[in-house]
């Protein structure tokens, strides 16, 4: 390969590094994306100009089709469907790596040997597993596959056995590299493994799974790079592999969970919350009405809105924004408090509220607003649950224990809009509902808020 291409590949690797670095900080994120894009463009152009490529017809067709589909999906997809979209893209990337590895095998003049075989097998294994795992993740998030963790006996044992079989086949392939059947079987079994690994994970944990699979697809690209002795593949793949692992770790930490717990804990339903929720026997909760809420709001000077997953389920973001603007016209100070893991994906609430054109500077991160609850008249908890659950502070055996929560209980009045007393994602009952300053308003968030808006307008 000519020196010039290799230098260009180095430049594009550097652009990827700078891109990822910038992407991880809010101020520079867009620049980061542009840098990474330029890196990719450069790598592709250089590859096309390289002497190795003799036939352009197929390529052009492939690139055109791929670009068309990519643009179309990226344009069409709704903001809240982002995680599953990323999952599918990621799966495609993994599949491509597996395909390239197989194509390389096919076109090799001599039979592969030694380390080459190892990287071939790993490339196919990781690539295929990424594809099927990502597709299942997509299915769970899109509601095509049940979001419930699918648990069956001996699950981990079976997965471990399957992996062993795959590696065994790899070893056989090592001794008979001319026998392509081994490689294809590895491919098939890896596909099964991908499905089995992701099925037992709850739908709401899918963002973490996708991030992990993303890291895998990076490694698959790296393996392909080894097979082809192509440095830009090796570098970018390793880059994504390692940084993806770190990101996965950071995501787990933000949820106060370990990666093991996410992968094997079978936590969460992904469907609406609260299977197994229990109404706490002897305690009573009064159900208030929207009228009661409006009375409280009329005398309030400061209001903080705490959105949660339920607001997304009810698609009540627009009516929430409407209510907020009426309150602001009445001279009330209205702010939104965004918990880092509210909703089902990172940034879920920001995306949701941006969709309803809520100005960015009304949104406050937990740390910026948590001190202000105690001076607030009314807090509206809309379809949020875990992120305001005091069990996180005190109940040692709770899955929430240790997670910082929004201190809504310190406000004068806490209005909670949800459909029942059932727990949220973590399956933990919420003491807040029984607090003396709490007002439960049962019902779908969109309905409740709609009524509140009507009453406010009428007043």
């Amino acid at each position: 390969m000519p020196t010039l291409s290799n230098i260009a590949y180095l430049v594009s690797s550097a652009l990827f590094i700078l891109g990822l670095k910038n992407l991880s900080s809010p101020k520079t994120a867009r620049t980061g994306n542009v840098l990474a894009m330029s890196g990719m463009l450069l790598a592709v152009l250089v590859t096309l100009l390289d002497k190795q490529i003799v036939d352009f017809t197929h390529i052009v067709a492939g690139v055109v089709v791929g670009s068309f589909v990519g643009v179309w999906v990226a344009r069409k997809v709704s903001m809240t469907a982002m995680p599953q979209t990323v999952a599918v893209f990621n799966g495609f990337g993994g599949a491509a790596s597996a395909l390239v590895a197989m194509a390389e095998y096919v076109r090799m003049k001599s039979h592969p040997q030694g380390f080459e075989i190892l990287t071939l097998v790993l490339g196919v294994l990781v690539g295929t597993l990424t594809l099927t795992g990502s597709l299942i993740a997509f299915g769970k998030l899109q509601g095509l596959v049940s979001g419930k963790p699918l648990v069956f006996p001996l699950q981990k044992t079976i997965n471990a056995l399957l992996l062993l079989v795959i590696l065994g086949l790899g070893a056989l392939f090592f001794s008979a590299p001319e026998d392509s059947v081994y490689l294809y079987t590895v491919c098939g079994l890896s596909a099964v493994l991908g499905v089995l690994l992701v099925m037992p994970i709850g739908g709401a944990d899918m963002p973490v799974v996708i991030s992990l699979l993303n890291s895998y697809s990076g490694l698959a690209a790296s393996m392909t790079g080894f097979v082809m002795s192509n440095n830009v593949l090796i570098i970018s793949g390793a880059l994504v592999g390692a940084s993806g692992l770190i990101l996965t770790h950071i995501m787990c930490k933000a949820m106060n969970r370990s990666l093991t717990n996410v992968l094997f804990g079978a936590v969460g339903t992904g469907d609406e919350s609260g299977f197994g929720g229990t109404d706490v026997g002897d305690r009573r909760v009064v159900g208030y009405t929207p009228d009661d809420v409006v009375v409280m709001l009329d005398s309030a000077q400061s209001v903080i809105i705490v959105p949660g997953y339920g607001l997304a389920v009810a698609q009540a973001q627009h009516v929430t924004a409407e209510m907020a603007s009426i309150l602001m016209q009445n001279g009330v100070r209205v702010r939104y408090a965004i918990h880092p893991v509210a909703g089902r994906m990172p940034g879920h609430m920001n995306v949701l509220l941006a969709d309803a054109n809520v100005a960015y500077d009304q949104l406050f991160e937990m740390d910026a607003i948590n001190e202000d609850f105690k001076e607030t008249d009314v807090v509206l908890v809309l379809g949020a649950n875990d992120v305001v659950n005091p069990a996180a502070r005190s109940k040692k055996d709770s899955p929430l224990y240790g997670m910082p929560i929004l201190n809504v209980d310190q406000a004068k009045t806490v209005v909670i809009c949800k459909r029942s007393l059932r727990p949220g994602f973590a399956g933990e009952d919420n003491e807040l509902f029984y607090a003396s300053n709490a007002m439960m308003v049962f019902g779908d968030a969109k309905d409740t808020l709609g009524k509140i808006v009507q009453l406010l307008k009428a007043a």
Partner: protein
Amino acid sequence: MGELLVSVYVFVLAIFVGFEVITKVPPLLHTPLMSGSNAVSGITVVGALISAGAGHSELATWLGVAAVVLATINVVGGFLVTDRMLHMFRKDKTTR
């Protein structure tokens, strides 16, 4: 130094860079970062282009073309989606 050894050197160093480059990401950026790095992992498109265009056997070419399509979707879709998300998080809403 042999071809393979060079690959190993490059791989190990890149792993170190990858581990160091991401330090503290606010949850807000988890999804964009995930999707951006996912787009980067679509670099496999380079391999796909070579497989598809090197003009070897029919089978290799078709495997390569399939890979080109999938990888291109990954790259193009990934970067665009990331950009859309980041656009969403901007303070200044006037350009929307």
